[in-house]
Protein backbone atom coordinates (compact mmCIF):
# COMPACT_ATOMS: atom_id res chain seq x y z
CA UNK A 1 0.00 0.00 0.00
CA UNK A 2 1.25 3.47 -0.88
CA UNK A 3 2.16 5.54 2.10
CA UNK A 4 2.95 8.94 0.63
CA UNK A 5 0.15 10.32 -1.47
CA UNK A 6 -0.03 13.54 -3.36
CA UNK A 7 -3.22 15.49 -2.81
CA UNK A 8 -5.48 17.35 -5.22
CA UNK A 9 -8.96 18.80 -5.47
CA UNK A 10 -11.09 16.36 -7.52
CA UNK A 11 -13.56 18.95 -8.84
CA UNK A 12 -10.69 20.78 -10.58
CA UNK A 13 -10.60 18.09 -13.26
CA UNK A 14 -14.21 18.62 -14.41
CA UNK A 15 -13.64 21.41 -16.93
CA UNK A 16 -10.56 19.76 -18.44
CA UNK A 17 -12.31 16.44 -18.91
CA UNK A 18 -15.45 17.94 -20.43
CA UNK A 19 -13.32 19.91 -22.90
CA UNK A 20 -11.50 16.74 -23.95
CA UNK A 21 -14.77 14.86 -24.47
CA UNK A 22 -16.51 17.75 -26.21
CA UNK A 23 -13.82 17.91 -28.89
CA UNK A 24 -15.15 14.69 -30.37
CA UNK A 25 -18.66 14.60 -28.96
CA UNK A 26 -20.51 17.56 -30.43
CA UNK A 27 -23.66 16.77 -28.47
CA UNK A 28 -22.14 17.87 -25.18
CA UNK A 29 -23.33 21.22 -23.85
CA UNK A 30 -22.55 22.64 -20.42
CA UNK A 31 -25.03 24.59 -18.29
CA UNK A 32 -24.13 26.78 -15.34
CA UNK A 33 -25.92 28.77 -12.65
CA UNK A 34 -23.40 31.55 -12.13
CA UNK A 35 -20.87 29.19 -10.54
CA UNK A 36 -18.71 28.33 -13.54
CA UNK A 37 -15.54 29.52 -11.82
CA UNK A 38 -16.23 27.67 -8.56
CA UNK A 39 -17.02 24.46 -10.44
CA UNK A 40 -14.12 24.71 -12.88
CA UNK A 41 -16.20 24.83 -16.08
CA UNK A 42 -15.35 28.44 -16.97
CA UNK A 43 -12.54 26.96 -19.10
CA UNK A 44 -15.20 25.06 -21.06
CA UNK A 45 -16.95 28.39 -21.61
CA UNK A 46 -13.77 29.81 -23.11
CA UNK A 47 -13.06 26.74 -25.24
CA UNK A 48 -16.61 26.20 -26.53
CA UNK A 49 -18.52 29.46 -26.04
CA UNK A 50 -21.33 28.34 -28.35
CA UNK A 51 -21.89 25.19 -26.28
CA UNK A 52 -21.76 26.81 -22.86
CA UNK A 53 -24.95 28.28 -21.38
CA UNK A 54 -24.83 30.60 -18.41
CA UNK A 55 -28.39 30.61 -17.12
CA UNK A 56 -28.03 32.70 -14.00
CA UNK A 57 -28.97 32.00 -10.43
CA UNK A 58 -32.02 30.06 -11.51
CA UNK A 59 -31.39 26.42 -10.71
CA UNK A 60 -34.92 25.10 -11.16
CA UNK A 61 -35.25 26.50 -14.65
CA UNK A 62 -31.73 25.43 -15.54
CA UNK A 63 -32.51 21.80 -14.73
CA UNK A 64 -35.58 21.91 -16.98
CA UNK A 65 -33.60 23.71 -19.70
CA UNK A 66 -31.26 20.70 -19.52
CA UNK A 67 -34.33 18.52 -20.03
CA UNK A 68 -35.18 20.55 -23.13
CA UNK A 69 -31.68 20.09 -24.55
CA UNK A 70 -31.84 16.34 -23.91
CA UNK A 71 -35.24 16.16 -25.62
CA UNK A 72 -33.55 17.53 -28.73
CA UNK A 73 -30.76 14.94 -28.67
CA UNK A 74 -28.01 16.87 -26.89
CA UNK A 75 -26.13 15.72 -23.79
CA UNK A 76 -26.52 18.58 -21.33
CA UNK A 77 -24.15 18.60 -18.36
CA UNK A 78 -25.41 20.82 -15.57
CA UNK A 79 -22.53 21.65 -13.25
CA UNK A 80 -23.04 23.50 -9.98
CA UNK A 81 -22.39 23.08 -6.29
CA UNK A 82 -24.30 19.98 -5.15
CA UNK A 83 -26.69 21.96 -2.98
CA UNK A 84 -27.64 23.93 -6.10
CA UNK A 85 -27.66 21.42 -8.95
CA UNK A 86 -29.17 18.76 -6.72
CA UNK A 87 -30.56 20.37 -3.58
CA UNK A 88 -32.42 23.21 -5.30
CA UNK A 89 -33.86 21.14 -8.14
CA UNK A 90 -35.55 18.03 -6.83
CA UNK A 91 -38.94 18.53 -8.49
CA UNK A 92 -37.29 19.40 -11.80
CA UNK A 93 -34.86 16.47 -11.56
CA UNK A 94 -37.81 14.21 -10.82
CA UNK A 95 -39.45 15.24 -14.08
CA UNK A 96 -36.18 14.66 -15.95
CA UNK A 97 -36.15 11.12 -14.57
CA UNK A 98 -39.87 10.73 -15.19
CA UNK A 99 -39.14 11.24 -18.89
CA UNK A 100 -35.84 9.30 -18.71
CA UNK A 101 -34.01 12.21 -20.31
CA UNK A 102 -30.28 12.05 -20.94
CA UNK A 103 -29.35 14.80 -18.49
CA UNK A 104 -26.04 14.75 -16.63
CA UNK A 105 -25.87 16.52 -13.28
CA UNK A 106 -22.63 17.19 -11.46
CA UNK A 107 -22.72 18.38 -7.86
CA UNK A 108 -19.43 19.77 -6.62
CA UNK A 109 -18.58 20.62 -3.01
CA UNK A 110 -20.36 17.42 -1.95
CA UNK A 111 -21.11 16.79 1.71
CA UNK A 112 -19.59 19.47 3.93
CA UNK A 113 -16.91 20.37 1.41
CA UNK A 114 -18.18 23.95 1.18
CA UNK A 115 -17.49 24.10 4.88
CA UNK A 116 -17.09 27.77 5.68
CA UNK A 117 -20.27 28.82 3.91
CA UNK A 118 -22.15 26.98 6.60
CA UNK A 119 -24.92 24.45 6.79
CA UNK A 120 -27.03 26.17 4.12
CA UNK A 121 -24.37 25.29 1.56
CA UNK A 122 -23.65 21.77 2.75
CA UNK A 123 -24.96 18.91 0.62
CA UNK A 124 -25.39 16.00 2.99
CA UNK A 125 -28.66 14.69 1.56
CA UNK A 126 -27.91 14.54 -2.18
CA UNK A 127 -27.37 10.78 -2.38
CA UNK A 128 -30.66 10.22 -0.55
CA UNK A 129 -32.81 12.48 -2.69
CA UNK A 130 -31.28 11.46 -6.00
CA UNK A 131 -31.08 7.69 -5.59
CA UNK A 132 -34.76 7.52 -4.68
CA UNK A 133 -35.70 8.73 -8.16
CA UNK A 134 -36.61 5.91 -10.57
CA UNK A 135 -34.15 5.66 -13.44
CA UNK A 136 -31.50 7.83 -11.83
CA UNK A 137 -27.88 6.68 -11.72
CA UNK A 138 -25.84 8.02 -8.80
CA UNK A 139 -22.05 8.12 -8.88
CA UNK A 140 -19.51 9.16 -6.29
CA UNK A 141 -15.95 8.90 -7.64
CA UNK A 142 -13.03 9.58 -5.34
CA UNK A 143 -9.81 11.19 -6.59
CA UNK A 144 -9.22 13.39 -9.63
CA UNK A 145 -8.43 10.53 -12.00
CA UNK A 146 -11.50 8.61 -10.98
CA UNK A 147 -13.64 11.72 -11.40
CA UNK A 148 -12.31 12.06 -14.96
CA UNK A 149 -13.06 8.41 -15.67
CA UNK A 150 -16.52 8.74 -14.13
CA UNK A 151 -17.26 11.72 -16.39
CA UNK A 152 -16.37 9.54 -19.38
CA UNK A 153 -18.70 6.78 -18.15
CA UNK A 154 -21.47 9.27 -17.41
CA UNK A 155 -21.33 10.74 -20.90
CA UNK A 156 -21.31 7.30 -22.54
CA UNK A 157 -24.30 6.15 -20.51
CA UNK A 158 -27.76 6.94 -21.90
CA UNK A 159 -30.02 8.22 -19.13
CA UNK A 160 -30.09 10.64 -16.21
CA UNK A 161 -27.00 10.60 -13.99
CA UNK A 162 -26.13 12.49 -10.83
CA UNK A 163 -22.48 12.60 -9.83
CA UNK A 164 -21.17 14.14 -6.61
CA UNK A 165 -17.61 15.42 -6.55
CA UNK A 166 -15.38 16.48 -3.68
CA UNK A 167 -14.10 20.02 -3.19
CA UNK A 168 -11.92 19.04 -0.25
CA UNK A 169 -8.44 17.77 -1.08
CA UNK A 170 -8.25 14.04 -1.64
CA UNK A 171 -5.25 11.71 -1.82
CA UNK A 172 -4.49 10.64 -5.37
CA UNK A 173 -4.79 6.86 -5.29
CA UNK A 174 -5.43 6.17 -8.98
CA UNK A 175 -3.29 6.71 -12.05
CA UNK A 176 -4.24 8.40 -15.28
CA UNK A 177 -5.33 5.10 -16.78
CA UNK A 178 -8.07 4.69 -14.17
CA UNK A 179 -11.25 3.11 -15.52
CA UNK A 180 -14.77 3.47 -14.20
CA UNK A 181 -17.64 1.05 -14.67
CA UNK A 182 -21.12 2.09 -13.59
CA UNK A 183 -22.45 -0.52 -11.16
CA UNK A 184 -19.05 -1.78 -10.03
CA UNK A 185 -17.32 -1.11 -6.71
CA UNK A 186 -13.55 -1.15 -6.41
CA UNK A 187 -11.70 -3.22 -3.84
CA UNK A 188 -8.68 -1.06 -3.13
CA UNK A 189 -7.11 -3.20 -0.42
CA UNK A 190 -7.70 -6.79 0.65
CA UNK A 191 -5.56 -7.79 3.61
CA UNK A 192 -7.92 -9.97 5.58
CA UNK A 193 -11.43 -10.69 6.76
CA UNK A 194 -11.69 -8.94 10.10
CA UNK A 195 -13.36 -5.85 8.70
CA UNK A 196 -14.17 -3.86 5.59
CA UNK A 197 -14.21 -0.08 5.36
CA UNK A 198 -16.65 0.82 2.62
CA UNK A 199 -16.92 4.43 1.47
CA UNK A 200 -18.39 6.77 -1.10
CA UNK A 201 -15.82 8.69 -3.11
CA UNK A 202 -15.87 12.03 -1.35
CA UNK A 203 -15.02 10.33 1.97
CA UNK A 204 -11.90 8.75 0.49
CA UNK A 205 -9.43 10.53 2.74
CA UNK A 206 -11.11 9.60 6.01
CA UNK A 207 -11.74 6.02 4.88
CA UNK A 208 -8.14 5.59 3.74
CA UNK A 209 -6.68 7.09 6.88
CA UNK A 210 -9.03 4.99 9.00
CA UNK A 211 -7.93 1.90 7.12
CA UNK A 212 -4.25 2.73 7.58
CA UNK A 213 -4.84 3.32 11.27
CA UNK A 214 -6.57 -0.04 11.63
CA UNK A 215 -3.68 -1.72 9.84
CA UNK A 216 -1.22 -0.02 12.15
CA UNK A 217 -3.13 -1.52 15.07
CA UNK A 218 -2.63 -4.99 13.61
CA UNK A 219 -6.14 -5.44 12.18
CA UNK A 220 -6.54 -7.09 8.83
CA UNK A 221 -9.31 -6.01 6.53
CA UNK A 222 -10.46 -4.57 3.23
CA UNK A 223 -10.93 -1.09 1.81
CA UNK A 224 -13.69 -0.75 -0.77
CA UNK A 225 -14.80 2.25 -2.81
CA UNK A 226 -18.51 2.14 -3.66
CA UNK A 227 -18.10 4.64 -6.44
CA UNK A 228 -21.39 3.66 -8.08
CA UNK A 229 -24.10 4.10 -5.49
CA UNK A 230 -26.95 3.38 -7.86
CA UNK A 231 -26.81 0.86 -9.35
CA UNK A 232 -24.85 -0.58 -6.45
CA UNK A 233 -22.49 -3.52 -6.83
CA UNK A 234 -24.69 -5.96 -4.93
CA UNK A 235 -22.41 -8.87 -5.65
CA UNK A 236 -19.51 -7.08 -4.01
CA UNK A 237 -21.58 -5.99 -1.01
CA UNK A 238 -22.89 -9.52 -0.44
CA UNK A 239 -19.37 -10.90 -0.75
CA UNK A 240 -18.13 -8.44 1.87
CA UNK A 241 -21.04 -9.13 4.19
CA UNK A 242 -20.34 -12.85 4.07
CA UNK A 243 -16.57 -12.46 4.34
CA UNK A 244 -15.84 -10.02 7.15
CA UNK A 245 -16.98 -9.52 10.74
CA UNK A 246 -17.63 -5.79 10.55
CA UNK A 247 -18.43 -3.41 7.72
CA UNK A 248 -17.93 0.26 8.51
CA UNK A 249 -19.64 2.51 5.98
CA UNK A 250 -17.95 5.92 5.70
CA UNK A 251 -19.72 8.78 3.95
CA UNK A 252 -19.54 12.55 3.59
CA UNK A 253 -23.34 12.52 3.80
CA UNK A 254 -26.17 11.96 6.22
CA UNK A 255 -26.32 8.37 7.41
CA UNK A 256 -30.05 8.60 6.62
CA UNK A 257 -30.64 7.64 3.03
CA UNK A 258 -26.99 7.63 2.00
CA UNK A 259 -24.50 4.84 1.42
CA UNK A 260 -25.09 3.23 4.84
CA UNK A 261 -28.82 3.03 4.09
CA UNK A 262 -28.13 1.71 0.59
CA UNK A 263 -25.95 -1.10 1.94
CA UNK A 264 -28.43 -1.96 4.70
CA UNK A 265 -31.17 -2.19 2.03
CA UNK A 266 -28.89 -4.49 0.04
CA UNK A 267 -28.52 -6.86 2.95
CA UNK A 268 -31.97 -6.69 4.52
CA UNK A 269 -33.97 -9.90 4.60
CA UNK A 270 -31.04 -12.27 4.85
CA UNK A 271 -28.46 -13.41 7.36
CA UNK A 272 -24.90 -12.32 6.77
CA UNK A 273 -21.76 -12.58 8.80
CA UNK A 274 -20.99 -8.90 9.07
CA UNK A 275 -22.37 -6.27 11.40
CA UNK A 276 -22.91 -2.98 9.54
CA UNK A 277 -21.88 0.28 11.22
CA UNK A 278 -22.01 3.85 10.03
CA UNK A 279 -19.68 6.83 10.04
CA UNK A 280 -21.13 10.03 8.63
CA UNK A 281 -23.43 12.86 9.62
CA UNK A 282 -26.17 11.93 12.04
CA UNK A 283 -29.41 13.74 11.30
CA UNK A 284 -28.16 17.20 12.13
CA UNK A 285 -27.09 20.32 10.30
CA UNK A 286 -23.42 21.15 10.78
CA UNK A 287 -21.97 24.67 10.99
CA UNK A 288 -19.37 26.93 9.39
CA UNK A 289 -15.78 25.81 9.55
CA UNK A 290 -13.12 24.25 7.41
CA UNK A 291 -14.29 20.94 5.95
CA UNK A 292 -11.57 19.26 7.99
CA UNK A 293 -12.79 20.80 11.24
CA UNK A 294 -16.43 20.01 10.48
CA UNK A 295 -15.59 16.39 9.70
CA UNK A 296 -13.59 16.18 12.92
CA UNK A 297 -16.32 17.72 15.07
CA UNK A 298 -19.28 15.90 13.56
CA UNK A 299 -17.77 12.45 13.46
CA UNK A 300 -16.45 11.81 9.96
CA UNK A 301 -12.99 11.00 11.26
CA UNK A 302 -10.46 8.33 12.08
CA UNK A 303 -11.52 8.13 15.73
CA UNK A 304 -15.07 7.21 14.77
CA UNK A 305 -13.89 4.63 12.27
CA UNK A 306 -11.54 3.13 14.90
CA UNK A 307 -14.36 3.11 17.46
CA UNK A 308 -16.67 1.26 15.08
CA UNK A 309 -13.96 -1.31 14.39
CA UNK A 310 -13.65 -1.90 18.13
Amino acid at each position, binding site marked *: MKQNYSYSVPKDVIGHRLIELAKDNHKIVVLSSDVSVSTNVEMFHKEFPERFFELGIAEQSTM*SVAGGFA*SEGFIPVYVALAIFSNGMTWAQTRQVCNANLNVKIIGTHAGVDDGQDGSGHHATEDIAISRVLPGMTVLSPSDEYEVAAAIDAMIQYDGPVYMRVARDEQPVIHSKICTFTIGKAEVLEDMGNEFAIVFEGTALRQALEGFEYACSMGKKGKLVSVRSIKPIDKECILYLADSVNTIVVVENHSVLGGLYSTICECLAGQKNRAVIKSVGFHDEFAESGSPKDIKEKYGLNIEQIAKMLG
Partner: protein
Amino acid sequence: MKITGTIDFDKLRMIANENRKKVLDMVYFGGSGHVGGALSATDVITYLGECVIDYDSKERDKFLLSKGHAVPALYAELHHLGYIQDAELSTFREINSRLQGHTNLLHMPLTDITTGLLGQGLSYGVGMAFAKKLKKSRNTIFVMTGDGEMHEGQIWEALMQAGHYKLDNLVLIIDRNGLCSHQPVENVISIEPLRERLEAFGWNVKEINGHNMEEIHSCVSGLNAQYGKPKCIISHTVKGKGISFMENNGKWHRNIPNKDEYVAACKELSLAREGI
Protein backbone atom coordinates in the same frame (compact mmCIF):
# COMPACT_ATOMS: atom_id res chain seq x y z
CA MET B 1 -46.00 26.19 -40.43
CA LYS B 2 -47.43 22.95 -41.76
CA ILE B 3 -50.03 24.74 -43.90
CA THR B 4 -49.10 27.79 -45.90
CA GLY B 5 -52.03 28.03 -48.30
CA THR B 6 -55.61 29.08 -47.74
CA ILE B 7 -57.07 28.24 -44.37
CA ASP B 8 -60.62 26.88 -44.14
CA PHE B 9 -61.66 28.49 -40.88
CA ASP B 10 -65.08 26.83 -40.75
CA LYS B 11 -63.35 23.48 -41.03
CA LEU B 12 -61.06 24.43 -38.14
CA ARG B 13 -64.11 25.44 -36.08
CA MET B 14 -65.73 22.13 -36.90
CA ILE B 15 -62.66 20.17 -35.81
CA ALA B 16 -62.45 22.22 -32.61
CA ASN B 17 -66.10 21.45 -31.93
CA GLU B 18 -65.44 17.74 -32.42
CA ASN B 19 -62.39 18.00 -30.17
CA ARG B 20 -64.56 19.58 -27.45
CA LYS B 21 -66.93 16.63 -27.66
CA LYS B 22 -63.98 14.25 -27.31
CA VAL B 23 -62.71 16.20 -24.27
CA LEU B 24 -66.16 15.91 -22.72
CA ASP B 25 -66.33 12.18 -23.46
CA MET B 26 -62.86 11.47 -22.11
CA VAL B 27 -63.60 13.19 -18.83
CA TYR B 28 -67.18 11.92 -18.52
CA PHE B 29 -66.55 8.29 -19.40
CA GLY B 30 -63.15 8.23 -17.72
CA GLY B 31 -64.66 9.76 -14.58
CA SER B 32 -61.57 11.90 -14.10
CA GLY B 33 -59.80 14.86 -15.65
CA HIS B 34 -59.78 18.63 -16.03
CA VAL B 35 -62.51 19.71 -18.38
CA GLY B 36 -62.55 23.50 -17.93
CA GLY B 37 -58.92 24.26 -18.77
CA ALA B 38 -58.97 21.77 -21.65
CA LEU B 39 -61.98 23.49 -23.23
CA SER B 40 -60.40 26.95 -22.91
CA ALA B 41 -57.29 25.69 -24.73
CA THR B 42 -59.05 23.62 -27.40
CA ASP B 43 -59.20 26.20 -30.19
CA VAL B 44 -55.52 27.10 -30.03
CA ILE B 45 -54.45 23.46 -29.71
CA THR B 46 -56.68 22.52 -32.65
CA TYR B 47 -55.18 25.30 -34.75
CA LEU B 48 -51.60 24.31 -33.89
CA GLY B 49 -52.29 20.65 -34.63
CA GLU B 50 -54.01 21.37 -37.94
CA CYS B 51 -51.87 24.18 -39.28
CA VAL B 52 -48.50 24.35 -37.51
CA ILE B 53 -47.01 21.25 -35.90
CA ASP B 54 -46.01 18.63 -38.46
CA TYR B 55 -46.06 15.57 -36.22
CA ASP B 56 -44.87 13.35 -39.07
CA SER B 57 -41.51 15.10 -39.33
CA LYS B 58 -38.53 13.99 -37.29
CA GLU B 59 -37.02 17.45 -36.95
CA ARG B 60 -40.04 19.65 -36.39
CA ASP B 61 -41.74 22.40 -34.44
CA LYS B 62 -42.75 21.29 -30.97
CA PHE B 63 -45.74 21.98 -28.79
CA LEU B 64 -45.26 21.76 -25.04
CA LEU B 65 -48.46 21.74 -23.05
CA SER B 66 -46.99 22.98 -19.78
CA LYS B 67 -50.50 23.10 -18.31
CA GLY B 68 -50.47 19.36 -18.79
CA HIS B 69 -53.81 18.78 -17.07
CA ALA B 70 -55.43 20.18 -20.22
CA VAL B 71 -54.13 17.14 -22.10
CA PRO B 72 -57.57 15.86 -23.20
CA ALA B 73 -57.59 18.74 -25.69
CA LEU B 74 -54.24 17.58 -27.08
CA TYR B 75 -55.30 13.92 -27.20
CA ALA B 76 -58.46 14.98 -29.02
CA GLU B 77 -56.42 16.77 -31.66
CA LEU B 78 -53.89 13.93 -31.93
CA HIS B 79 -56.88 11.63 -32.42
CA HIS B 80 -58.15 13.85 -35.20
CA LEU B 81 -54.72 13.70 -36.81
CA GLY B 82 -54.82 9.90 -36.64
CA TYR B 83 -52.21 9.26 -33.97
CA ILE B 84 -54.75 8.00 -31.43
CA GLN B 85 -57.36 5.41 -32.31
CA ASP B 86 -61.09 5.68 -31.56
CA ALA B 87 -61.10 2.92 -28.95
CA GLU B 88 -58.11 4.43 -27.20
CA LEU B 89 -59.92 7.64 -26.32
CA SER B 90 -62.08 5.79 -23.80
CA THR B 91 -58.96 4.60 -21.94
CA PHE B 92 -57.99 8.10 -20.80
CA ARG B 93 -56.43 7.98 -17.32
CA GLU B 94 -56.97 4.22 -17.03
CA ILE B 95 -54.32 1.64 -16.19
CA ASN B 96 -52.25 0.43 -19.17
CA SER B 97 -53.35 3.36 -21.31
CA ARG B 98 -51.05 5.56 -23.37
CA LEU B 99 -53.35 8.42 -22.46
CA GLN B 100 -51.85 9.47 -19.15
CA GLY B 101 -53.46 12.09 -16.93
CA HIS B 102 -50.82 14.63 -17.94
CA THR B 103 -48.64 14.70 -21.05
CA ASN B 104 -46.02 11.98 -20.88
CA LEU B 105 -43.05 11.63 -23.17
CA LEU B 106 -42.55 7.92 -22.51
CA HIS B 107 -46.16 6.85 -22.95
CA MET B 108 -46.92 9.23 -25.81
CA PRO B 109 -43.77 10.72 -27.36
CA LEU B 110 -45.78 13.05 -29.61
CA THR B 111 -46.77 15.08 -26.56
CA ASP B 112 -43.15 16.34 -26.56
CA ILE B 113 -42.80 16.75 -22.79
CA THR B 114 -43.61 15.04 -19.51
CA THR B 115 -45.67 17.29 -17.26
CA GLY B 116 -47.53 16.96 -13.99
CA LEU B 117 -45.74 19.71 -12.12
CA LEU B 118 -46.73 23.17 -13.29
CA GLY B 119 -44.16 25.78 -14.16
CA GLN B 120 -41.54 23.64 -15.91
CA GLY B 121 -42.65 23.70 -19.54
CA LEU B 122 -41.30 27.11 -20.51
CA SER B 123 -37.84 26.11 -19.29
CA TYR B 124 -37.98 23.01 -21.51
CA GLY B 125 -38.92 25.38 -24.29
CA VAL B 126 -35.83 27.47 -23.56
CA GLY B 127 -33.62 24.37 -23.74
CA MET B 128 -35.24 23.19 -26.98
CA ALA B 129 -34.99 26.67 -28.51
CA PHE B 130 -31.27 26.78 -27.70
CA ALA B 131 -30.93 23.28 -29.17
CA LYS B 132 -32.74 24.21 -32.39
CA LYS B 133 -30.45 27.18 -32.84
CA LEU B 134 -27.37 25.02 -32.26
CA LYS B 135 -28.66 22.62 -34.92
CA LYS B 136 -29.31 25.60 -37.18
CA SER B 137 -32.88 24.39 -37.44
CA ARG B 138 -35.59 26.90 -38.28
CA ASN B 139 -38.18 25.13 -36.13
CA THR B 140 -40.21 26.95 -33.50
CA ILE B 141 -40.98 25.81 -29.96
CA PHE B 142 -44.50 26.58 -28.77
CA VAL B 143 -45.23 26.39 -25.06
CA MET B 144 -48.69 26.77 -23.57
CA THR B 145 -49.03 27.69 -19.91
CA GLY B 146 -52.10 28.47 -17.89
CA ASP B 147 -52.53 31.94 -16.46
CA GLY B 148 -52.64 30.58 -12.92
CA GLU B 149 -49.44 28.73 -13.79
CA MET B 150 -47.76 32.12 -14.05
CA HIS B 151 -47.64 32.03 -10.24
CA GLU B 152 -44.84 29.49 -10.48
CA GLY B 153 -41.46 31.15 -9.85
CA GLN B 154 -39.69 28.94 -12.37
CA ILE B 155 -41.73 30.54 -15.16
CA TRP B 156 -40.14 33.88 -14.40
CA GLU B 157 -36.67 32.35 -14.37
CA ALA B 158 -37.36 31.01 -17.85
CA LEU B 159 -38.85 34.31 -18.99
CA MET B 160 -35.64 36.04 -17.93
CA GLN B 161 -33.43 33.44 -19.60
CA ALA B 162 -35.34 33.54 -22.90
CA GLY B 163 -35.41 37.33 -22.87
CA HIS B 164 -31.71 37.58 -22.13
CA TYR B 165 -30.78 35.24 -24.96
CA LYS B 166 -33.37 36.75 -27.34
CA LEU B 167 -34.79 33.33 -28.21
CA ASP B 168 -36.94 34.37 -31.15
CA ASN B 169 -37.74 30.74 -31.99
CA LEU B 170 -39.67 30.38 -28.74
CA VAL B 171 -43.39 31.19 -28.47
CA LEU B 172 -45.19 31.26 -25.15
CA ILE B 173 -48.98 31.03 -25.33
CA ILE B 174 -50.67 31.95 -22.07
CA ASP B 175 -54.17 30.46 -21.89
CA ARG B 176 -55.65 33.47 -20.10
CA ASN B 177 -58.95 31.96 -19.00
CA GLY B 178 -58.88 33.97 -15.79
CA LEU B 179 -59.47 31.13 -13.36
CA CYS B 180 -57.20 29.12 -11.12
CA SER B 181 -58.42 25.82 -9.66
CA HIS B 182 -61.71 27.32 -8.45
CA GLN B 183 -61.46 31.09 -8.25
CA PRO B 184 -60.20 34.04 -10.30
CA VAL B 185 -56.45 34.20 -10.78
CA GLU B 186 -56.58 37.85 -9.82
CA ASN B 187 -58.13 36.95 -6.45
CA VAL B 188 -55.51 34.31 -5.73
CA ILE B 189 -52.36 36.25 -6.66
CA SER B 190 -52.56 38.98 -9.26
CA ILE B 191 -50.48 38.51 -12.40
CA GLU B 192 -51.39 41.91 -13.85
CA PRO B 193 -50.20 43.98 -15.55
CA LEU B 194 -49.26 40.82 -17.44
CA ARG B 195 -48.40 42.34 -20.80
CA GLU B 196 -46.19 45.00 -19.30
CA ARG B 197 -44.43 42.49 -17.10
CA LEU B 198 -43.66 40.25 -20.06
CA GLU B 199 -42.47 43.16 -22.17
CA ALA B 200 -40.23 44.28 -19.33
CA PHE B 201 -38.68 40.79 -19.42
CA GLY B 202 -37.74 41.32 -23.07
CA TRP B 203 -40.65 39.59 -24.78
CA ASN B 204 -42.65 40.62 -27.82
CA VAL B 205 -46.29 40.35 -26.66
CA LYS B 206 -49.51 39.98 -28.64
CA GLU B 207 -53.03 39.58 -27.30
CA ILE B 208 -55.75 37.64 -29.06
CA ASN B 209 -59.18 36.16 -28.57
CA GLY B 210 -58.12 32.54 -28.19
CA HIS B 211 -61.43 31.27 -29.48
CA ASN B 212 -61.30 33.13 -32.78
CA MET B 213 -59.59 31.02 -35.44
CA GLU B 214 -58.96 33.99 -37.73
CA GLU B 215 -57.23 35.88 -34.92
CA ILE B 216 -55.22 32.83 -33.87
CA HIS B 217 -54.08 32.30 -37.45
CA SER B 218 -53.28 35.93 -38.07
CA CYS B 219 -51.16 36.11 -34.94
CA VAL B 220 -49.31 32.77 -35.23
CA SER B 221 -48.63 33.04 -38.96
CA GLY B 222 -47.12 36.48 -38.43
CA LEU B 223 -44.64 35.33 -35.78
CA ASN B 224 -41.96 34.12 -38.18
CA ALA B 225 -41.41 37.64 -39.45
CA GLN B 226 -40.44 38.87 -35.99
CA TYR B 227 -36.83 38.60 -34.89
CA GLY B 228 -34.71 39.39 -31.90
CA LYS B 229 -37.11 38.62 -29.06
CA PRO B 230 -39.02 35.64 -27.71
CA LYS B 231 -42.71 35.93 -28.43
CA CYS B 232 -45.71 35.68 -26.17
CA ILE B 233 -49.35 35.38 -27.11
CA ILE B 234 -51.75 36.21 -24.32
CA SER B 235 -54.68 34.12 -25.47
CA HIS B 236 -57.83 35.48 -23.83
CA THR B 237 -60.14 32.54 -23.36
CA VAL B 238 -63.09 31.30 -21.35
CA LYS B 239 -62.67 28.37 -19.00
CA GLY B 240 -65.18 25.69 -19.97
CA LYS B 241 -65.69 27.34 -23.40
CA GLY B 242 -68.49 25.86 -25.48
CA ILE B 243 -70.62 24.44 -22.66
CA SER B 244 -72.61 27.29 -21.14
CA PHE B 245 -72.97 26.02 -17.61
CA MET B 246 -69.25 25.31 -17.41
CA GLU B 247 -68.14 28.66 -18.79
CA ASN B 248 -66.34 30.92 -16.31
CA ASN B 249 -67.38 28.63 -13.50
CA GLY B 250 -64.54 27.56 -11.21
CA LYS B 251 -66.49 24.45 -10.27
CA TRP B 252 -65.60 22.99 -13.67
CA HIS B 253 -61.84 23.05 -13.22
CA ARG B 254 -61.97 19.32 -12.59
CA ASN B 255 -65.59 18.52 -11.88
CA ILE B 256 -67.05 15.49 -13.65
CA PRO B 257 -70.46 16.02 -15.29
CA ASN B 258 -73.33 13.80 -14.19
CA LYS B 259 -75.53 12.13 -16.79
CA ASP B 260 -77.96 15.03 -17.15
CA GLU B 261 -75.12 17.51 -17.42
CA TYR B 262 -73.39 15.32 -19.97
CA VAL B 263 -76.51 15.10 -22.10
CA ALA B 264 -77.04 18.87 -21.87
CA ALA B 265 -73.41 19.51 -22.81
CA CYS B 266 -73.61 17.18 -25.81
CA LYS B 267 -76.72 18.99 -26.97
CA GLU B 268 -75.00 22.37 -26.76
CA LEU B 269 -71.99 21.16 -28.71
CA SER B 270 -74.29 19.63 -31.29
CA LEU B 271 -76.19 22.89 -31.71
CA ALA B 272 -72.95 24.80 -32.01
CA ARG B 273 -71.84 22.39 -34.69
CA GLU B 274 -74.98 23.06 -36.68
CA GLY B 275 -74.29 26.77 -36.42
CA ILE B 276 -70.85 26.55 -38.04
